[in-house]
């Protein structure tokens, strides 16, 4: 079970990195949110992956022998909620950029950082 989780997290990180290296903005933000999903999966795996036993310490024992550690699950809930809001925000952001500039190519996105002029110097503000 833990191996399946590890492989899944690895595959999702791979997909996320691949997508976020793309020039298409929508792919970039989907890639980032995939990496977030993988981080959540890793967090979940830190609760161990034993099975359906409840996290109760049996009478006479001092530590939890079987059952999932509930704390990482609480943590992952927080992380999922935060990640969801960030994904929503970034999708709207890309949509707004696409509507305003009619372009989703990351390389063409130079509104905040104009290209240098022909002579290699930064462009004069207000000339472009």
């Amino acid at each position, binding site marked *: 079970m833990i191996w399946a989780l590890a492989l899944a997290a690895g595959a999702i990180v791979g997909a996320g990195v691949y997508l976020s290296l793309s020039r298409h903005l929508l792919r970039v933000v989907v890639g980032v949110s995939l990496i*977030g999903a993988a981080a959540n999966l890793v967090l979940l795996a830190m609760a161990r992956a034993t099975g359906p036993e409840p996290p109760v310490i049996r009478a006479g024992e001092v530590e939890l022998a079987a059952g999932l550690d509930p704390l990482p699950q609480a943590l992952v809930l927080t992380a999922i909620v935060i990640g969801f809001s960030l994904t929503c925000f970034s999708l709207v952001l890309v949509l707004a950029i696409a509507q305003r500039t009619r372009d989703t190519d990351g390389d063409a996105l130079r509104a905040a950082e104009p290209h240098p002029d022909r002579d290699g110097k930064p462009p004069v503000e207000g000339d472009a």
Partner: protein
Amino acid sequence: MGNWLLPLPVILPLATALLTMVSWRRPRVQGLIAGASLGALLAVSTALLGLVWTEGTQRTSFGGWPAPFGIEFAVDPLGAAMVSITALMGATAALFSLGDADPGTPSPTLWPLTFALLAGVGGAFVTADLFNLYVWFELMLVASLGLLALGGEPRHLDAALKYFVLNALGTLLLLLAVGYLYGLTGHLGFVPLRGALTDLDGATLGPFVALLVLAILIKAGAFPLCAWLPASYPTLPASLVALFAGLLTKVGIYVLLRLLGGVLPALPAFLTQGLAWVAAATMLVGVLGAAFHWDLRRILAFHIISQIGYMLLGIALLTKAGQVATVFYVIHHIVVKANLFLIAGLVFRMTGTYDLRRAGGLYVARPALALLFAIPALSLVGLPPLSGFWAKLLVLREALAQQQLALAVVALAVGLLTLYSMLKIWLEAFWKPHPDPDWSPPSHVGLTPAYLATGLLAAVTLAFGVMPEPMLQLAERAVETLREAGP
């Protein structure tokens, strides 16, 4: 029992964010609430600093769960100093925004987002829990994204996206590292984590610590992961960019200092040596970017990166003296850098442009502004008797004491290049005559609050410079507490 003070640096801004959100239809009410809250924040943080100074580290945990189980807030001298400087920066930025220098687009969500940002920063300074720290980083990220996108023009959205991608990645890597460290130790609190980590050997711990450090380095804007900073900061209006530039990257430095100084066990030598060279590269790349650009805000944004390098170098030296140097540097830098961005806003108001090639003549037209610029500018360069001189001296002295000659040479060369790029601003914006001979500065300006804010910060810089002893004492006390007991 002063423990009820501890959560206030978070609760106060969060409550203000809610109140200003509710009163979004009434800008005047919003402004009054914001002003009152910033005043209260200043009072609370000063009280906290006094309390921590006399009675030592204060702790409190939530929900009736004691230390290793519940989430803990802890304020030691370092945290209290950072909270105080945050309150000071929030108040001066707000004061500045009362003037009409580079006000940006008015928006009902400006105050709620600003206070959410302050809550995130305050939370990162008072928390003693790794996962809680991640939550504050996320709050800072969301709030700063909102502030970046507030303008709504393509350049604002462009900046927000570039800021988002690398910063979100940094936060996710932090989450991953937090998860792994929890898996290794079963603890998230700084104190129990410190106890549990000492039992593990470096080889097991290495990759996870490296992941954690990488995540924080993205947040701090270290080379080569610094591209998001100069891409996004220059699109903000002056009072906001001062707040961003003063506080956000320094939260990263603070967290790195806290974790490497008081929570994680000693790193393997190659990692600290690597960190030292990252620091050197950060200094150099930042200052070269500053030397290239002609836009006032871009020059200053690249200077942040370069100065982050000095702070990282202090941390990478690992000794007490190095860490003291970093604490001193961080506090000096927050004041000076925020002030420079505010003064850039004043220059913009006078000349109508941030591009140095189109500006000029300010020394003749506004000599007081020229003097006001010279104080933080020369302090950033590191000339005595200003605060930057002591900060750089402390870092350099420790680098030389550790026989790190190459690093010291890089730091000195970067100081020279910083002087060059500051001279460029001075010569272009202040000294040379304005390119348009008919130009005269606008006569009807409402800049009194802006001059007050920048003057106050300049006075703080001068005070740190002339009397470095109290500041140095605070830094030493902060580092001693950090190294002794963790946070």
